[in-house]
C-alpha cells in the first residue's frame, strides 16, 4: 500500500462541558480553537486551512451552521470545510483534517468540533425525530432512545447479557469522569450497579443513568505535516490510521446485534496502520459510549473482543483504567462520564488519546505503558463508524 505524507497532532484544547452554556456556539468554537493554538504554540496566521464539524443544524436552529461557526473557528478568508457524518462527526473531523495535510495541499490545519444542544427547547430529543424517514418512521413520533432500546435489547438477547453487566460500563465511566477537569457538572460520580439499574426507565431496557446527558461544549486540535513538525516539535503524536464506513439507510434491514460498519472502518484503519493483531497492538481505546451498552458493542466491532465477549471481559476488569493486562477503555470517562456534546464529544475522545500518549492525562493517565491508541465514534441511524489510530 502507498503510504501518504505523515500527519501529526501538535496541540489540543477543549472547553468545559456544560448543560447550558452562556456562550454562543461561535464563542465555544473560539475558546477551544484558541486553546489548541496556544497548546501548539501557533498563531491563527500559521494555520493554512480550517475544518469544523457540528451535528444537526437543527440543534442551534441555524441553517448553514458550518458557515455560522466559521469565524469562531478562525476560518476568516481561509479554505474552510465542514464535514458531516452525524454523531460520528467528532472523530471524522480529524480524518477530514488528515486528508487536508496528507494530500500535500496544506502544512497546518485547525480542526474544531462544536455542539450547542441546549438551544433546542424543551429538549433535543425532539430534534431527533427529524432524523427518521419522512414517510415510514417519523409519523410514529419516535426519538433516539427508542431505537437504542431496540438495539440494546437485541444485543442483550443474542448474547444473554444481564442488565447489571451493562450497568458496569456506566459505573466505570462515571467514575473515570471524576478526574476529568472538563466533565459536566453532576454527570460523573461514584455509582453502584443498583443505582444505575434502578434509575428511571427511559425506554426499556435503557435507564436514565445509562444514557449520556445533553451537553454544550467544543474541542479543537491542530494538525501539521511532517516537514512542519520536524523543525519545531519534539516527539509529536502521529496519525497512523483512519477509517470510516457508512451502512445502508434502511436500518430495519440489519441485524442490530453487531455493528459491522464499525468493523469495516476499523479494518480500514488497521490496514493503514499496519496492525495485524489489534488486541496486542492497541494499548488504550476510546470507544463511543453515548449509551452504556454501546461501549461493549463497539469494542466488539473494533475487533478488540470476540462477539459477546466484551461484557465478560468487563466483569473481569479488562477495560479498567488501571489494568495492566487488559486494554483501558474510556479512561477519560467517555460520554457517560464527561458529557456528550455530540460532535465535540468525538473529538474529546481523540484528544484523550493524544493526552494519554503524551503522558499529559494527569490523574487519568493509564498505568500501562501506551504507544498506540484508538478513538472511535458512531453516528447517523446506527450506520456510520469512524476510527482513528494515533501513535508515538
Amino acid at each position: 500500500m502507498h503510504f501518504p505524507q505523515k500527519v501529526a497532532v501538535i496541540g489540543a484544547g477543549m472547553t468545559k462541558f456544560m448543560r447550558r452554556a452562556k456562550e454562543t456556539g461561535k464563542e465555544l468554537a473560539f475558546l477551544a480553537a484558541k486553546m489548541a493554538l496556544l497548546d501548539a504554540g501557533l498563531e491563527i496566521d500559521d494555520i493554512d486551512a480550517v475544518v469544523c464539524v457540528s451535528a444537526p443544524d437543527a440543534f442551534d436552529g441555524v441553517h448553514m451552521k458550518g458557515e455560522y461557526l466559521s469565524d469562531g473557528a478562525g476560518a476568516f478568508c481561509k479554505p474552510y470545510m465542514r464535514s458531516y457524518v452525524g454523531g460520528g462527526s467528532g472523530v471524522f473531523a480529524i480524518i477530514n483534517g488528515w486528508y487536508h495535510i496528507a494530500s500535500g495541499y496544506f502544512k497546518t490545519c485547525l480542526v474544531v468540533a462544536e455542539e450547542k444542544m441546549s438551544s433546542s427547547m424543551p429538549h433535543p430529543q425532539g430534534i431527533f425525530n427529524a432524523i427518521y424517514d419522512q414517510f415510514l418512521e417519523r409519523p410514529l413520533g419516535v426519538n433516539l432512545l427508542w431505537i437504542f432500546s431496540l438495539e440494546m435489547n437485541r444485543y442483550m438477547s443474542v448474547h444473554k447479557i444481564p442488565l447489571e453487566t451493562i450497568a458496569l460500563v456506566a459505573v466505570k465511566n462515571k467514575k473515570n469522569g471524576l478526574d476529568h477537569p472538563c466533565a459536566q457538572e453532576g454527570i460523573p460520580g461514584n455509582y453502584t450497579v443498583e443505582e444505575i439499574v434502578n434509575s428511571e426507565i427511559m425506554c426499556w431496557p435503557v435507564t436514565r443513568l445509562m444514557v449520556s446527558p445533553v451537553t454544550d461544549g467544543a474541542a479543537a486540535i491542530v494538525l501539521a505535516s511532517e516537514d512542519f513538525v520536524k523543525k519545531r516539535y519534539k516527539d509529536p503524536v502521529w496519525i497512523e490510521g483512519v477509517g470510516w464506513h457508512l451502512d445502508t439507510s434502511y436500518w430495519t434491514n440489519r441485524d442490530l446485534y453487531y455493528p459491522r460498519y464499525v468493523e469495516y472502518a476499523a479494518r480500514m484503519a488497521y490496514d493503514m496502520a499496519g496492525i495485524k493483531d489489534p488486541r496486542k497492538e492497541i494499548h488504550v481505546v476510546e470507544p463511543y459510549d453515548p449509551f452504556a451498552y454501546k461501549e461493549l458493542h463497539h469494542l466488539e466491532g473494533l475487533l478488540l473482543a470476540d462477539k459477546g465477549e466484551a461484557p465478560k471481559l468487563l466483569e473481569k476488569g479488562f477495560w479498567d483504567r488501571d489494568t495492566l493486562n487488559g486494554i483501558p477503555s474510556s479512561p477519560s470517562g467517555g460520554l457517560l462520564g464527561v458529557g456528550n456534546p455530540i460532535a465535540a464529544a468525538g473529538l474529546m475522545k481523540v484528544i484523550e488519546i493524544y493526552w494519554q500518549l503524551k503522558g499529559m492525562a494527569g490523574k487519568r493517565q493509564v498505568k500501562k505503558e501506551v504507544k498506540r491508541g484508538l478513538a472511535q465514534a458512531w453516528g447517523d441511524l446506527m450506520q456510520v463508524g469512524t476510527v482513528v489510530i494515533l501513535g508515538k
Partner: protein
Amino acid sequence: MNERVAIIGIGYTQLRPLSPDVSFREMIYEAAVKAYNDAGIEPKDVDTFVAISEDYNEGTAIFDEYVPDQIGAVLKPVHTITQDAITAISACVMQIKTGIFNIAVLEGHSKASNILYPSHIEAFALDPISIRPLGFNPLFLAGLEMQRFLLERGCNEYHCALVVSKNKKNAMKNPIAAYPGEISISDVLSSNPVSFPLKELDISKRADGAFVIILARESIAKKLSDKPVYIEGIGWCQETPNIEKRDLVNALYLTYAANMAYSQAGIRNPLKEIDFAEIDDTFSYKELQHIEALGISRSGESGNMLEEGYFDFDGELPVNVSGGSLGCGNLYDANGLRGICEAVLQLREEAGERQIPACEIGLVASWKGLPSASGGVLILSNRE
C-alpha cells in the same frame, strides 16, 4: 502524490421546476447509473464517496443518513460536506491525492420544489441573535448588495438585465435547462421589483435535479477513459458569516479561492488563458461581481466588457454558455456541479449545439448562495 486527478464520468438528470413523480433517491439513482455507465465502472470499484447536502434544504436532520443506498455506497467510506460543490469536490481531490484512494464519487442534488417557503429557510441562516430578530427576507440582503455593487463599480441595472437575457438565451441550446427563454432587456427592467434594485427576473428560479461525478487519479483515468478531464487547480475559501462586516462590493471569497486555483494551474492572465467559464449567477449582479473577483475583468469594467460582447457565446471568454442558474435553475449547493458537468461536456467536445470550438481550459466558480460568503474555483483542462 504528484499525479493529477481527472474527472472520468458524469451523470445528471433533467432539471425541472417540479418533480412530483420522483423522490430525491430516484433522482440521484438516475444520475448515478448514468455516471457509472459514462465512466465504465461499477460502484464496487469506487474507494470513497462524498455527498453534498444541507439539512434545512432537505427537511431532514442528519441528511447524511440517506446518502449511501442510491449511489451504491453501502458499507463504503462515505461522508457529507455541507458546503458548495467545489469545496466538496476538493474533498474528493484531496482524498485521491493522499495516494490511498484511486476512484472517488461526488453526489449532489436539489429537491428545491419540496421547500414550501424558501426565504423562511434562508432566514434561518442569519445570525440568531443580532440579525434574525430584525425579521427581514434574505432577498433584501441581495438587493442591498446589488445596490452597493452597482454604485461602487459603475455598472447599472441595464448590465444586470443583459446578464439575464444572455444566460436565458444560452439556455435555449441546453437540453437540460429548466428556464430557457428569449427575454429582452426591457422585459427584465420592467419585471416586478423585489428588493430595490433587484427585480423578479434578476433572481434565478429554483429547480430540481441530481448530479454524480466520478474522479480518478491520472494513471487510472487514462486506462478507464478516452477523454479524461483533468483538474489543474482548485481553491475554496470562507469569508465572514457576519453580514454587517462584509463590504458588499468585493466577492473576497472568490478572489482568495481563485488565487489558490490559479497558482496551482499556473494561470497569470485569466481572460487570455481561460477558454470559457461557468460562473455562479444566482442573481444577475453576482455574475458581474464574480467576474471581477476572479480577475477576469478589472474592477469596474465587467459591465462594459459584457456590453462589448466579451462574455457572449462567440466572445473572448464565453461565460455561462450552459445558461447558468438564471437559465437552468437555481440548484442550491448543486449549482457548482452543474457548472462542472458543463465544463466536462465542453472539454470532451460533447456539448452539441453550444460547443465552444477548440477549448482547452475551463473555469468553474461557485457560491454557496444567499446569505453566505463562501465559494470555490475549479480549473479544468483536457490537455495531456
